[in-house]
């Protein structure tokens, strides 16, 4: 174990996989000397050189599109989209090329590629640099979606994403990049599709991912003081989704609160609620609550942004409504 930040941990994962497999390379805007907008790739250029750490023009369509071609032709690209907000620019390449190539070709192609991209609000970056858009990708069959919440998960899921033979969207939350934590050294791979119980509890299940895991944990801590024992379940990957762990937890607690930073309507919380309202209906003892951002773009002013984001208080309030 070693203390690392989340950014260091995901970089450690990239570095190890690049050392292990010469077909892995990283391309994106300002990933080289500049080291990425939040320093995520700092030092990699020095270690691997310009052939494997590739600065691209501002051409997201070509960045993702080229990765599809390179992957189909035998490489394992990692590409960075500087902010998840820009994924709309290259959405066709994700939706119609990366995701569907294998299926359309009758299983006769492999598209192993990772798109790394930071999400999330909290730094007054306003409406076009703060979004949480994971729900777009979970609605695209053929794509996997990974959202780590801790440094250890960031590393283990990065290694798994790079080794996966499918297109994987790896979403790193910008407010977590500086988070410190214990990270296993050397090879460390967390299989995609395994949830992690971040805190055990018996009265209510809180499903949360990415930065929201930490708000859920804080809420659980506060709730414990009031005698409510909350289990915090982090799915870690939304696709594949560890449905069984969620249903098991709800089977125990009989209550479910889902927390995500994305806007409410059409967020992935709806999918989880729908699964439980179908397959776990008989387990439930209370309505399913969602704590999310409201249906509005992310505002700039810190005063507004604070009110916009899900908070410990909002989670506590939602949990209490179930008792």
């Amino acid at each position, binding site marked *: 174990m070693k203390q690392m930040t989340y950014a260091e941990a995901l970089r450690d994962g990239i570095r190890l996989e690049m050392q292990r497999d010469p077909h892995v390379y990283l391309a994106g805007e300002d990933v080289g000397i500049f080291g990425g907008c939040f320093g995520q790739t700092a030092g990699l250029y020095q270690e691997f050189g310009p052939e494997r750490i590739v600065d691209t023009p501002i051409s997201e369509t070509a960045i993702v599109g080229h990765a599809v*071609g390179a992957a189909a032709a035998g*490489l394992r690209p990692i590409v960075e989209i500087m902010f998840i907000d820009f994924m709309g620019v290259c959405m066709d390449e994700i939706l119609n090329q990366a995701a569907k190539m294998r299926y359309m070709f009758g299983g*006769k192609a492999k598209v192993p590629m990772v798109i790394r991209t930071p999400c999330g609000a909290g730094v007054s970056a306003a409406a076009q640099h703060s979004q949480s858009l994971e729900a777009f990708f979970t609605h695209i069959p053929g794509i996997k979606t990974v959202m780590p919440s801790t440094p250890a998960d960031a590393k283990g899921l990065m290694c798994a994403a790079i080794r996966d033979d499918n297109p994987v969207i790896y979403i790193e939350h910008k407010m977590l990049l500086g988070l410190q934590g214990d990270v296993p050294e050397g090879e460390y791979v967390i299989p995609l599709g395994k949830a992690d119980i971040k805190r055990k509890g018996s009265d209510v299940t809180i499903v949360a991912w990415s930065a929201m895991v930490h708000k859920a944990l804080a809420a659980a801590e506060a709730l414990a003081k009031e005698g409510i024992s909350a289990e915090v379940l982090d799915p870690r990957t939304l696709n594949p989704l560890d449905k069984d762990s969620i249903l098991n937890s709800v089977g125990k607690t009989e209550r479910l609160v889902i927390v995500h930073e994305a806007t409410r309507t059409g967020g992935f919380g709806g999918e989880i609620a729908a699964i439980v309202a179908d397959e776990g209906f008989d387990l439930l003892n209370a309505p399913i609550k969602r704590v999310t951002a409201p249906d509005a773009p992310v505002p700039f002013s810190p005063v507004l942004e604070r009110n916009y984001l899900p908070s410990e208080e909002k989670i506590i309030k939602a949990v209490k409504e179930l008792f």
Partner: protein
Amino acid sequence: MEITKAELLSFYETMVTIRTFEEKAAELFAAGKLPGFVHLYIGEEAVATGVCANLTDKDYITSTHRGHGHLIAKGGRIDLMMAELFGKATGYCKGKGGSMHIADVNLGILGANGIVGAGQPIAAGAAFACKYKKTDAVAVCFFGDGASNRGTFHESLNMASIFKLPVIFVCENNMYGISNYQKNHMNVSDISDRAAAYGIPGVTVDGNDVVAVYEAAAEAVDRARKGDGPSLIECKTWRHRGHFEGDPCIYKDPKEQEAWLKKDPVLSLEKKLTELKFATVVELEEIKAAVKEKIDSAVLFAQNSPDPDPDDVLTDVYAS
């Protein structure tokens, strides 16, 4: 560079194969035997043929919605193609893709594509892989005049130029994007002029002259294999039929259509072959008959093939 008799005859066979395949597809579609959309390549055979004659199985191509010709020229198997048009389990894509998505990755065919302009960055990426792996393989991207107005064109040519990728962008300018005449969708007459915006060579050739196409492609492929980067080749040509089968083509000037029909690339090549005494009319007929037989047996293969198992819907979404 002198084209040999053997080469010319092989071009001819390829072009006739494409033509016959497409005529058969038209016939089958009209008879209600093919599901979905069918976009035919009739009239443009010289482009795919002349370009792909420079490629080996190690090289890549990306194709379009109008892809049958590219696939045949790159060595795709017509029985598997025909079965795919029928949506059969034996088809190239096991019936999952259809006409617009046929691929053969082992032959470097990265697929027909239903999204106009989507092949451009994919071809750049395949070329990136060729270069990264330090092979001398290249990638060719086929696309239309209409596709040259998409943002993907710009981003891909720029990226290919910057990275000196071994990729050849082949614009099949048939003067229409569906009903939109070139003059109404761009203000340049030679699309090859757009190469200058990326600092790469651009050339325009008669796309109905397979030798002209072959020679221009040879130069560009050679350049790419040597590590000198991408090129843009514009091939001026004409689609004889509607945008898709069923399109009555009301937007086309019948006089222009007539003039272009006279420039039919297959007939021109026949003329050349007989003039050069590389083949007699009878020999050409023999080639055509042999091709027809191959196509007919591909149709038989397709028709006799089983439908996919309905439950196969759920396989091949992910690699495991």
